[in-house]
C-alpha cells in the first residue's frame, strides 16, 4: 500500500477546490481525485466558424437529450449521457446537467454570486415550513467576506436584509435609458432592484483561482481521470479510511488510504457515492429532500419601442440588473411561500419565433427590431420535500460498472403559483416602463435544468433527520465530510455557488482544527 494521505478530496470543482485551497495552506497534505481529464485551454479550444461544424451549430441529434445548455461549440464540455446514464419516471423528467472535467462546473458557470440570508438559513422560523439550517447568516458571513475577494465579485451595496451585501468590486456603472425606465417602474411598484453580482475575470474557476495556490504549497496531489467507485470504511471502527477508484481510460482499479475523506463531487454525485458506499445514512434521509430552483427562461420578452428602426443606440439600450426577492418578507402571500428573483437585460434582437410572420415580412420586422429587445428570466425557491429524492438504480450502471442514480423530483403548487405571480409582476413592470410585450409565459423548465440541484445530504442539528452537522461533517462518521450543494437545507432564489464555496472554506477550517486536536 502506498502512503496513506492526510485528506482525500473527491472532486476538483468549487467545493473540492476550496477545501484543497484552505487545507493545503494550513500545511495539510491532500490527495484530490477527479473523475474527469485535465483541461488545457490552449490545446482544447480553437476559434471555428459555425459553418465548419458538422451540424452547422445544431449539434449532433440526440447527443444531449437533457442538456439544453449544450451547443455544437461546447458539446465536448458536458458529461456524456451514454457513459453516465441515470433514470427517472418518464412522466416526471429530470434534466441532470454535468461536467466531468477537472474544475467541474466552475469551468462554465454563470458567475452569479449572491449571499443567502436568514430568510433562507432560518426559513422555518419565518414561515413554519421545512427545517432551519444548523447555521445562521452570521456564522457564514466571515467566510462570504473572504470568498468574494478571491472570486473578485462585483456588485453594489444596497442594504437589503434578504440579500446581504458583500465585499465587492463596486459596480456603480451607469444604466442605459431603457434600464433606467425599468428601474423607475420597479421603484413605483416598490420592487427592489440592484446590479448583478458576479465573479469577474476571464475565468473564475477552481482551476485558476483555487488549485494553483494549493499546488504551490507542495501539499496537493491531483489525480484526474479517477472515477471513485466507493468510499471505504474500517469494519472495526466504522471510520472512513479511503476510497477505491477506477481509471477513466484504462478501467484499471485502484485503492487509496486517507485519514479524512471529503466528498465534493457535486450534489448528486456525492450522494450517489455515499449511497453506493452504504455510508452515513442512519437517519434514512440520505438521498431525500432533493430540490433546486425554478427557472423560467424569458418569462417576458419585450421590445423598447424607441429602439425600433435602427435607433437602438448604446445610450438607450444595453446593460441590465437583478430584481431581489420581495415576496413573503413582511406580508404573507396567500398562494405560495418563499419568493423569487429576476435577471433582466436590455439589448439584443428577439428570436424570429416570436413574430407571426415569415419570409420578407419577417426579415423586415427582424431588421426593424434589431437591438431593441428587453428580456426577463425568473428563478424561484423550491420547497425541499422528503418525497423528492434520489436512489440507486437497480438495473443501470455507468461505463465503469458503477450503479447509476434514479432521480425523482416534481414541482408542487407552491412553485407553480409563485411563477404565475412572477409573470404578473414582470408584465406590470414592462408595461410601467413603456415596453411592448412580445411574448410571455409561466412555464418552468424541468427539474434539474437550472443546474442548481441541492439537498439529498442535508445538514441539520438532529442526526435522526439529517446527514451532516453544521460543519458538513457526517453525523455517523466523524472523519467523513460532504462539502457541496448536497448539504443545503433550503436554497432561496439565489445562485448557490458562493454559499457552497463559503461553507467549504468553513468546513475545512473546522476539519483542520479537529485534525490538530486528533479528534479525527
Amino acid at each position, binding site marked *: 500500500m502506498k502512503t496513506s494521505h492526510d485528506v482525500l478530496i473527491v472532486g476538483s470543482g468549487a467545493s473540492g477546490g476550496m477545501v484543497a485551497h484552505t487545507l493545503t495552506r494550513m500545511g495539510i497534505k491532500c490527495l484530490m481525485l477527479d473523475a474527469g481529464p485535465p483541461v488545457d485551454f490552449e490545446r482544447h479550444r480553437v*476559434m471555428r466558424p*459555425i459553418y465548419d461544424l458538422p451540424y452547422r451549430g445544431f449539434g449532433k*441529434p440526440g447527443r444531449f437529450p437533457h442538456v439544453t445548455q449544450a451547443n455544437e*461549440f461546447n458539446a465536448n464540455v458536458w458529461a456524456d449521457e451514454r457513459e453516465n446514464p441515470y433514470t427517472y419516471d418518464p412522466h416526471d423528467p429530470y434534466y441532470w446537467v454535468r461536467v466531468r472535467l477537472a474544475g467541474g462546473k466552475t469551468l462554465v458557470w454563470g458567475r452569479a454570486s449572491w449571499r443567502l440570508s436568514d430568510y433562507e438559513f432560518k426559513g422555518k422560523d419565518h414561515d413554519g415550513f421545512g427545517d432551519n439550517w444548523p447555521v445562521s447568516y452570521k456564522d457564514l458571513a466571515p467566510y462570504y467576506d473572504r470568498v468574494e475577494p478571491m472570486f473578485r465579485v462585483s456588485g453594489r451595496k444596497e442594504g437589503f436584509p434578504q440579500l446581504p451585501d458583500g465585499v465587492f468590486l463596486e459596480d456603480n456603472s451607469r444604466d442605459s435609458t431603457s434600464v433606467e425606465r425599468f428601474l423607475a417602474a420597479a421603484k413605483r411598484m416598490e420592487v427592489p432592484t440592484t446590479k448583478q453580482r458576479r465573479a469577474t475575470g476571464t475565468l473564475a474557476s477552481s482551476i485558476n483561482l483555487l488549485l494553483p495556490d494549493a499546488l504551490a504549497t507542495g501539499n496537493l496531489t491531483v489525480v484526474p481521470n479517477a472515477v471513485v467507485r466507493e468510499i471505504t470504511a474500517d469494519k472495526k471502527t466504522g471510520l472512513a479510511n479511503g476510497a477505491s477508484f477506477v481509471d477513466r481510460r484504462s478501467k484499471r482499479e485502484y485503492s487509496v488510504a486517507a485519514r479524512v475523506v471529503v466528498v465534493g463531487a457535486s450534489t448528486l454525485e456525492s450522494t450517489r457515492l455515499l449511497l453506493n458506499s452504504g455510508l452515513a445514512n442512519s437517519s434514512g434521509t440520505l438521498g431525500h429532500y432533493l430540490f433546486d430552483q425554478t427557472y423560467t427562461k424569458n418569462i417576458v420578452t419585450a421590445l423598447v419601442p424607441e429602439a425600433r428602426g435602427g435607433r437602438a443606440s448604446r445610450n438607450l439600450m444595453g446593460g441590465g440588473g437583478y430584481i431581489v426577492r420581495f415576496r413573503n418578507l413582511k406580508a404573507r402571500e396567500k398562494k405560495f411561500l418563499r419568493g423569487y428573483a429576476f435577471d433582466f437585460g436590455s439589448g439584443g434582437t428577439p428570436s424570429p419565433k416570436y413574430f407571426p*410572420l415569415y419570409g420578407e415580412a419577417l426579415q423586415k420586422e427582424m431588421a426593424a427590431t434589431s437591438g431593441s429587445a428587453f428580456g426577463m428570466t425568473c428563478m424561484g425557491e423550491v420547497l425541499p420535500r422528503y418525497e423528492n429524492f434520489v436512489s440507486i438504480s437497480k438495473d443501470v450502471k455507468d461505463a465503469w460498472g458503477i450503479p447509476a442514480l434514479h432521480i425523482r423530483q416534481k414541482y408542487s403548487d407552491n412553485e407553480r403559483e409563485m411563477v404565475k405571480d412572477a409573470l404578473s409582476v414582470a408584465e406590470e413592470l414592462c408595461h410601467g416602463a413603456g415596453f411592448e410585450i412580445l411574448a410571455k409565459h409561466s412555464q418552468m423548465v424541468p427539474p434539474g435544468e437550472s443546474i442548481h440541484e441541492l439537498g439529498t445530504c442535508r445538514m441539520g442539528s438532529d442526526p435522526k433527520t439529517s446527514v451532516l452537522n453544521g460543519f458538513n461533517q457526517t453525523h455517523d462518521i466523524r472523519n467523513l465530510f460532504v462539502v457541496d450543494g448536497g448539504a443545503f437545507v433550503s436554497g432561496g432564489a439565489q445562485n448557490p455557488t458562493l454559499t457552497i464555496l463559503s461553507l467549504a472554506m468553513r468546513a475545512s477550517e473546522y476539519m483542520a482544527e479537529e485534525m490538530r486536536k486528533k479528534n479525527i
Partner: protein
Amino acid sequence: MNRRDLFKTAAGASAACALPADAQDAKKIDEAPLIAATSPDAIADGKVRFFAPEEFAALERLSDILMPASANAPGALAAGVAGFLDFLLSESGPDRQRLYRSGVQTLNAEARRLHGKPFSGLSIAEAAPILKPLNEPWTYAGPSDRFSRFLTTAKEEVWQATQSSREWSQAAAARTRSAGGVGLYWLPIE
C-alpha cells in the same frame, strides 16, 4: 559592389550551387506546415438521403419562401438549407423525422388540392393559405396540430440554418468588419 561583397556573393552562390538536391528537400522534412483545408460544403453538393424527390422539392420551395434572398444576404436556397436539413433529419430521432416528412407531404397534398400542382410549383401568394398557421401568435406550448408544429419548427430551423451557412457568413464579412458566426469550439478532451 565592392571586392569584399563580390567575394561574399560569389562564395554564397558557390555554396548554394554546391548543396545536393537531397539537402534542399531535407528542409521540408523538418517542417510541419498547416495545410489550408476546405470543407466539403464549399465544393460539393450533399446527397439527398432522407426525403423522396418531390418531398425534397417541397422543402426547398418552403425554405425559399420562409427565408428569401435579400439585397444584402443570401437566402435559404443559396445557403443549401434544404440539403442540410435533409442530412440533419437523416440522423435525427423518429419523432422529428415524422414531423418533417408528414409536414412536406401535407404541403404537397394541400398544394395539389388547392392548385393542382406540387408545392414546389407554387408562388408565394398561392402558398400563403397553406402557410397560414405561421401567422398565429406565438405560444410556449406551440401549436397542437402536427402540420402547424412542422411549419413553426421549419421556420425557426430554416432561419437558423441559413444564418449559420458559409454563404451567409461570407456576405456578412463583405458588409461589415465583424467575423460573423465564429465561436470558441471545444475539441474532444481525451
